[in-house]
């Protein structure tokens, strides 16, 4: 299931996010963030259920702090939805699946 989530890095981020034809949800996370771990399994489910219409990538802010800074991420988990390579929506904080799907409804 987790295989559907792309692991992004500072070298692959721009290409992966910029070249995608479907919206890409980028999960800014880190190992030391409890709430990030809570939403990881939910994101895996969403990636599977919406394969084809939505892509999900995860970016470890410890490994790619410049990208987190570029998008002014100041709290994790933060999910940014990129459409045509541009940030289209930002979701801050951990949430339940129903709430997340609601927040992502425009892109599903």
């Amino acid at each position: 299931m987790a295989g559907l989530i792309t692991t992004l890095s500072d070298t692959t981020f721009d290409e992966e996010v910029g070249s995608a034809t479907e919206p890409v949800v980028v999960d800014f996370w880190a190992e030391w963030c409890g709430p990030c771990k809570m939403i990881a399994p939910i994101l895996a489910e969403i990636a599977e259920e919406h394969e084809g219409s939505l892509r999900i990538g995860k970016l470890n802010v410890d490994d790619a702090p410049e990208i987190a800074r570029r998008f002014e991420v100041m709290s994790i988990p933060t999910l940014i939805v990129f459409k045509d390579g541009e940030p289209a929506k930002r979701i801050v904080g951990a949430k339940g699946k129903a709430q997340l799907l609601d927040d992502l409804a425009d892109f599903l």
Partner: protein
Amino acid sequence: MPADVRDVVIIGSGPAGLTAAIYTARANLAPVVLEGEPSSTSDQPGGQLMLTTEVENFPGFPEGVMGPQLMVNFRDQAERFGAQLHTVKASRVDFGQRPFRIWVGDPDAPAPTWLANSVIVSTGAQSLMLGLDNETRLIGHGVSTCATCDGFFFRDQEIAVVGGGDSAVEEASFLTKFASKVTIIHRRDELRASKIMQDRAFANDKIEFHWNGQVSEIIGEDRLEGVVVTDTQDGSTERLDVSGLFVAIGHKPNTDLFDGQLDRKDNGYLVTVPGSSRTNVEGVFACGDVQDDYYRQAITAAGSGCMAAIDAERWLETQH
């Protein structure tokens, strides 16, 4: 379709709820745990420790343990003995009839999601916010409810922590790993925090104190730019330019769900019979911070979770 009647349903999954789960699972009561939904504001699976950093006072971990890791351990231990965990939030309860009825999702659904012979309530408490304009809007843009999640983003910046208890001082100490300066804003002229935490804070060059101060305004459009602090003695105001604000001013119990069903104290905490976990409803037990406005420690929560499990087990025996 109402499920089978379960012997024990536990609402909440912090140290209290998961300890109750370990004990009732080992007593072959096949507990169901409604662990809550993910959140970054102290109302999440694993409870308040999911938002903390290093826990140094939980016995059995001489080198300390990270709060989220400790809760993963609790959870694994409960699952090992067959506790059934569901990542959902109870939306309504009816303790007026037996078996007790619990709803998940739509609270107006005609049929409850769970039926239970006994219920253990361990919904905990959550952090209070200041309640100021801009506060909620700027969460994730400088205002934080989770120091461990967000400290990283304030490297070499000047930030503030509001509060004077253990959580505030611990957060401030943790945040000095990143920030260039951390100002503790406290409305009194002395801290409530434990002696060891105070000594550590006073010895930390990066921590400054703003005594007798109350944050009265949060400033910022797209991101936090500063706060206005009003002096509690003479009413004078001062602006503090900070890019981060961490609030640790206390807690409120998560008891709205039980309004009108379980007795509560004036401050909202559930009432239990002293020396037990019994509530005013026979067969409903409460443990952890939801019924503790005094100790509020992970270890006391775990201890009271054990009490609730034993109380529930013995009470169920009398029902057969």
